[in-house]
């Protein structure tokens, strides 16, 4: 039983099949990259995994439990967190607050604890703040703690989004084009950072266009074109696969 099983999932918008019977399996600790031309249905697949879109058909089993068509809140609680293609941080909130919000689901105290600021409340608050600082320290954003998310440079915002996903205690991270808009030096740092995440035991599913990042970080690659899975395998096989080249470079009639 793989860690995450996606069985024949489809999503139809009216007549159009944005995602058409895609199946794939992800094992614990793996890095899977999902590639394909723009508009192939990659982000839609992510939306289906995270509960943003309901499935037209198919099933998603995560760690043995079905999660398809569950609410985004339930899916995050099960341990599947995501970042967004166009960054969706909380702009006018502080960096530390963005990370703390990721921890919302695991901050267990009641409304009465809040009102009377009980010892339990204060202990958990300190603990959560402490963990938030550790996470921010680990991704090199510690000195930005007081700054507002909207003021951060682009690269830092990307990393803050990943830090926020980590803070939800997720087991699987869905990174939607994390390297988009990054210069080579920044995407190199990102590469290292994702490798460290994998070493810490995180399972990562990546949507990415930067072939340099994809080729040397992924354990396996899944290729999607027009909503269908047209190939799956090791980076080397995918690089030489005829159908993949056609999908990218166009049919040679």
């Amino acid at each position, binding site marked *: 039983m793989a860690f995450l099983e996606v069985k024949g999932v489809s999503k139809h918008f009216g007549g159009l099949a944005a995602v058409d019977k895609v199946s794939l399996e992800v094992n614990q600790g793996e890095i899977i990259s999902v590639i394909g031309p723009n508009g192939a249905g990659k982000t839609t697949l992510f939306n289906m995994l*995270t509960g*943003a879109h309901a499935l037209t058909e198919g099933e998603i089993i995560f760690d043995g439990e079905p999660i398809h068509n569950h609410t*985004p*809140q339930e899916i*995050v*609680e099960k341990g599947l*967190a*995501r970042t*967004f293609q166009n960054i*969706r*941080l*909380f*702009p*006018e*909130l*502080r960096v*530390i*607050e963005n990370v*703390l*919000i*990721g*921890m*919302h*689901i695991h*901050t267990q*105290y009641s*409304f009465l604890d*809040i*009102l*009377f*600021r009980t010892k339990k*409340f*204060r*202990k958990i*608050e*300190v*603990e959560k*703040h*402490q*963990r938030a*600082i*550790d*996470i921010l*320290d*680990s991704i090199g954003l*510690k000195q930005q*703690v*007081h700054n*507002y998310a909207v*003021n951060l440079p682009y690269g830092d915002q990307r990393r803050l989004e990943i830090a*926020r996903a*980590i803070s*939800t*205690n997720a*087991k699987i991270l869905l990174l939607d084009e994390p390297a988009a808009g990054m210069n080579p030096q920044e995407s190199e740092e990102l590469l290292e950072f994702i490798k*460290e995440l994998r*070493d*810490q*035991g*995180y399972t990562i599913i990546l949507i990415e266009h930067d072939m340099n990042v994809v080729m040397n970080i992924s354990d396996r690659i899944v290729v999607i074109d027009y909503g269908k899975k047209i190939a799956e395998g090791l980076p080397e096989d995918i690089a030489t696969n005829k159908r993949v080249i056609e999908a990218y470079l166009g049919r040679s009639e």
Partner: protein
Amino acid sequence: MAKKLALKNNTIVDWISKLRNYYYAHKKVFFIALAVLIVLTPYISPSQYILRIIIMVGIYTILALALGLVTGYTGQVSLGHASFYAIGAYTSALLSTHFGLNFFITVPISAIVAAIGGLLLGLPTLRLSGTYLAIATLGFCEVVRMILLNWQSVTNGPLGVSKIPRPSIFGYELTLANNGLYYLMIVLLILTTACMIAIVRSKMGRALKAIREDELAATMMGIKTTYYKVLAFVISAFFSGLAGAFYAHLIRYIDPNTFVFDTSIMILSIVILGGMGTINGMFLGSALLVSFPEVLRFLQEYRFVVYGIVLVMMMRFRPQGIMGGQKKSNYQFPSGTIMNRNTTQTKFSLSQENSVEGGV
């Protein structure tokens, strides 16, 4: 003219931010001085008229804090908060006049009845967003006013409720003359402020702010947005009802025309002028906007034209309000957080995270 206006204007903006930073830098000193002053105010205020204005400032601060939770922190615009103010006032007035219940019994009941009103309004309308929600709350307020006007058997309709008794503790009547009402207002104000600060500085406060900033991202982070929006509405209605109950006993006569659309807009303007998503902004906003008509009484009929102009200018040149927007001062960590803990072992591995949980 616009250029000159802009020039004149950013001198105002600089002046405001300089003042603000000075205030944040010397917070401790201010609060001690303020506490002493609050206790002595009734004795140093030149007349009961001033004392009454300060009490009204206090009431509108409570209302602004309540509305601030919904509009300032959660970003949901409500144009009908006068309805909870009215529900609180009428419940307390009717209970005390018909059943002769003491103030300290009728007030909590009125606040709870208002909170139920908040639930009634909150549940169905919070699926709506933005403009639709604003209009629904406005409709709700007009309907509440119609009920108060037409349900003659209970609310006495247009005749209103008169001779509402003064609050009394063990028979000792609190009136304006013996400053009892003033201290009662201060107690209610402290209670509301403490609750609001507690809520804002907790996971609920952060969840509300997340909903304001980006509701979809908040959902993706596992926040049950509808639950928190309704909860914010109910809490806000509770404190608005509290303010309404106190107001009824202060003024001793209420009728449906006391709680009109203008009242809701007055509360909203205080929240916006003071600064959305702040606590001390509410005090400042209500102090300015309540004393504004009194101080500018000599303007007679031009008063409300100036009032409109202030709203328009505020929105154009400083929409985040006086105290709102990004603060220069640092984020306040809960006491006990160690900033630079040299974590020997690796940073945040899945396993390490569990040990921290278990260890402490």
